[in-house]
């Protein structure tokens, strides 16, 4: 009786195939997991706590400007003796917004969105308001906290 007709032999071959295939799959999973985690940025990535964005005197009353808090562009609005900070990312497609002194509003030139100085949507394609960020003043410097 040839080995190809031997049911025990077929069983052994199947067992070997399963063992090799299973081992290969295990190697891929065990080796792949750290690679995926290495490439996957943390959802919490952001500035670690409040970031100094400049001296308070750099943000005069009745003005607004875009500065960087770490890698994040933020709009600092100084109106009615109050300093507020918003993410400068338009909530439509994340283009960077700018302050328009002429229209007294924050505008996204990219797709025509506009926001009030308190972050509300005034017009254009955006649906959600600008994300407000917490600000604090320490030793004459303005600090902005950007969540991840």
């Amino acid at each position: 009786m040839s080995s190809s007709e031997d049911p025990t032999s077929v069983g052994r071959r199947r067992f070997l195939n399963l063992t090799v295939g299973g081992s290969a799959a295990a190697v891929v999973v065990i080796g792949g997991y750290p690679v995926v985690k290495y490439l996957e940025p943390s959802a919490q990535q952001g500035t670690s706590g409040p970031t100094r964005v400049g001296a308070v005197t750099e943000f005069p009353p009745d003005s607004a400007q875009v500065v960087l808090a770490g890698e994040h562009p933020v709009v600092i609005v100084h109106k009615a003796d109050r300093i507020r900070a918003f993410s400068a990312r338009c909530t439509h497609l994340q283009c960077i917004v700018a302050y328009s002194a002429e229209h007294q509003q924050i505008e996204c030139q990219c797709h025509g969105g506009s926001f009030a100085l308190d972050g509300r949507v005034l017009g254009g394609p955006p649906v959600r308001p600008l994300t407000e960020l917490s600000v604090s003043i320490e030793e004459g410097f303005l600090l902005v906290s950007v969540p991840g």
Partner: protein
Amino acid sequence: MTTEPKDAPRSSWLADRLGWDRLRSSLDRHAVPRHSFFFYIGGLTLFALLLQVASGILLMMYYRPDAAAAHASVERIAREIPYGGLVRGVHVWAADLFVAMLLLHAFIVMVRRSFKSPQELGWLSGVLLMLIGIGQAFTGAVLPWSERAYTNARVGSQLAGYTPMVGDWFRRFLRGGEELSTDTLSRAYAFHVALLPAAMTVVVAGHFYFISRKPVVALEESNTKTIPFYPDFLIRQGVAFVGILVLVLTLAIFADRSIGTVADPRLATPADAQPPWYMLALHYVVRTAPRELLGVEGPRFLGGAVTALGVLFAALPFVDRRGSRITVWLSWVGLFALLLLSFRALH
């Protein structure tokens, strides 16, 4: 010990080691339509890819994938390195040509219904090549870290973020974080010069294997006069390669592609920011879409619609197994819609 008959044809030492006779007889069995320009597009796409590989390797010698140095290094290549402008021009124009050929190749396969059974794997590998090719173009466009590159990276990754279910993860994965940074640039570089080319090499090999292993039914049904693949078709293809090379060199020398100003994340995105030409139609749809569609935020709805269309496109040989006329008509309608939307985006 075996001995060859005295009258057996002598093949050279190298031909024997290469198995040339078997390869030659395999090539002799292949034929392509005599006057069909369509059959040159696949080879020309590959040639445009090879031009990018060659010029890309040269660019790697001087390019620096760091947000603080990338733009200056591209400026240096273009202005100071001997023939740097030519090498960069060849790379940029060949990339555009490659994407155009890729899209044209897909369109021709659709209208000729060459995707139908048994070419399912040929089609699927082709769709995968399109995705990798667009990924190559997208990551390459980020590398100069100019104002335009920065805007395209920002908007492009945000659009990818509207993919259903995996969008947020995908956006962070592309950016290397929540915000664009030097990590975005080095990630785009690693994908552009290593991961995507490696994937493309494997998929191109698979694509050739799949399309040569099973017959293209549409070709067999066409009853047109054919010529041998080797040497007739390959010689004509070679002439077409020379034509493309001359075209790319001419464009690289006489049609300068501006690098633009260096990216500054504090500057507002300009109103005239334009995406790459192959994204103009999508750009126009996103720009003009209503704020909400069926209670869903406009871009999120479009992200879902584009994903669904993409899945349907990839599954074409399984949806339309016999290659119906409807697919041909839809291909033409799709082409005109894309051209019209792109034109509107520019004006």
